[in-house]
Each structure stands twice: as structure tokens, then as C-alpha cells.
């Protein structure tokens, strides 16, 4: 086990902690907006640490093994190993960048959809009240009655589009 693999293992363990605490938070938190926090944090942090640890595991191939006394020194990685390792690391970095872009975006989309639920009141099977997200009191929210202003956001009829007022 080389030095990079030991460092990578440490990063993996940090990733374990974030993954487990995040999942436990999603399971145990009291309401929906609280659950958004562990889900969003761990999606970003745990995957960052774990993929970074995997990067270090891959880079270990590039370090020549210290020869035992009496052996010939390791000539180091050949060209194919070097190219393969850098290809692997590049793809892992691309994966991290991709999740760092998409994970907060989808968390934000879920949160915004939940906030808009006071207008949409998504129906729930077997529950006449529908989705109860709209009844969660948000600290600092304005207490004016929430009225669906006559916007066309939710009632767009694509087949018979209204003409513009101008």
C-alpha cells in the first residue's frame, strides 16, 4: 500500500462519514425543507471526497515501487500505463465537475418546485388535502395570503396559445 493509496483511503473514510450522516439526516430530519440540507450537502461533499480518493488510488500506479535490497530498481511506468492513468483521472475529474454542476441544480429545482406547491397543490392519492408541503411554515416568509396571481405559468395551453396583448 503506497503513500497515495493511504492518503486516498483517508479521503474515502471522510467520504463514508459524509455519505452515512447525509443519508441518516434525510431519514431522520423532521420536515421536507430540513431534509433538503443533508441531501444537498452530501451529494456534493461525499462524492467529491470519494472520487478524489479514487483519483489518488489510480495515481498510485505512476509511482515506482521502492526496490527491495538486491533487486533491480523499478523502471517506472511505461507509456501505456501513464496514458491510461491520466485518462482515468481526467474522466474522474469530469465526473466530479459534472455532479458539482448537476447536484445543486437539481436540489434547487426540487426546493423551488416545493415552494411553488402552494400554487399547484399536487394531489396525493388517498389524501384529500393533497401534498402538505404548502402548509410548512417557512421562517421569515411573508404572511400575506398566497393568491395565485393570474399568471399563465401553470395554465399554459400550448394548443391554443393566447395572442400577446400588444
Amino acid at each position, binding site marked *: *500500500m503506497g503513500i497515495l*493509496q493511504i492518503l*486516498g*483511503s483517508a479521503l*474515502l473514510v471522510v*467520504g*463514508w462519514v459524509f*455519505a*452515512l450522516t*447525509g*443519508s*441518516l439526516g*434525510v*431519514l431522520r430530519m423532521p420536515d*421536507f425543507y430540513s*431534509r*433538503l440540507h443533508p*441531501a444537498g450537502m*452530501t*451529494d456534493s461533499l*461525499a*462524492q467529491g471526497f*470519494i*472520487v478524489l*480518493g*479514487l483519483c489518488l*488510488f*489510480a495515481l*498510485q*500506479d505512476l509511482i515506482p515501487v521502492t526496490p527491495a535490497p538486491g533487486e533491480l530498481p523499478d523502471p517506472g511506468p511505461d507509456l501505456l500505463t501513464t496514458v*491510461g492513468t491520466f*485518462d*482515468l483521472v481526467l*474522466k*474522474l475529474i*469530469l*465526473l466530479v465537475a*459534472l*455532479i458539482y454542476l*448537476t*447536484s445543486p*441544480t*437539481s*436540489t434547487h*429545482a*426540487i426546493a423551488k*418546485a*416545493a415552494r*411553488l*406547491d402552494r400554487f*399547484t397543490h*399536487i394531489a*396525493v392519492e388517498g389524501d384529500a388535502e393533497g*401534498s*402538505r*408541503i404548502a402548509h410548512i411554515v417557512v421562517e421569515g416568509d411573508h404572511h400575506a395570503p398566497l393568491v395565485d396571481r393570474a399568471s399563465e405559468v*401553470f395554465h*399554459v395551453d*400550448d394548443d391554443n396559445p393566447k395572442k400577446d396583448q400588444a
Partner: protein
Amino acid sequence: MTQLPSSLLALHVEGHGPSPSPAETMIVATCVVLLISTTLLLIRALRGPTVFDRILAVNAIGTKAVLLVACLAFMDLEHGTPAFFIDTSIVYALINFIATIAILKYIQYRRLS
């Protein structure tokens, strides 16, 4: 045995060999941790009182699956070519994002167009 450069074959042949190296043990343990955390999220997805809880949990499960595929690539690093698995997990990350947005759009507008 023919000269197959397959990582699966290498795993099978080495199955009766010496015990796994510490590095491989770490990778397997990471897979186990990811599976445990997926189980916890799955409980929330099944139980979750509102539809948004379920979407949140399924989105997180997708991210965990991406990590799991990336970890599977490293289980046989000495013999296999892990880059294929990383391709798979990149595609899975894209599909996960698009699926979340599509489901949200569907439950809001009751249509996808």
C-alpha cells in the same frame, strides 16, 4: 486458458488466490458504505409523506449509484481497464439529472412537452 484481457476473468482466476490487498479492502468497504446509505435513502423514498421527499431521496440514490459504479471500476485496478466503468458512471450522472428535472416538470405541469 486463452489470453483474454478481461477484468472479470482475472477476478475469477484470482478468486482462490491470496487475500485481497488493503487497497481492495478499502474499495469494497466503500461499496458497502454506499449500499448502506442507499438503503437508508430508500426507506425515506418509500416512506416519504410528500412526493418531493421521494424525488429528493431518489435523486440522492442516483448519486450514490454513480459513486458505486465508479468504485466498482477500482476493484481490480491491476488487471482491468477501469475507464469503461467511469464512462458508465458519467452517463448515469447525466441521466440522473435529466430524470429529476423531467419528473419535477411532469408533476408540476402534468405534461412533459
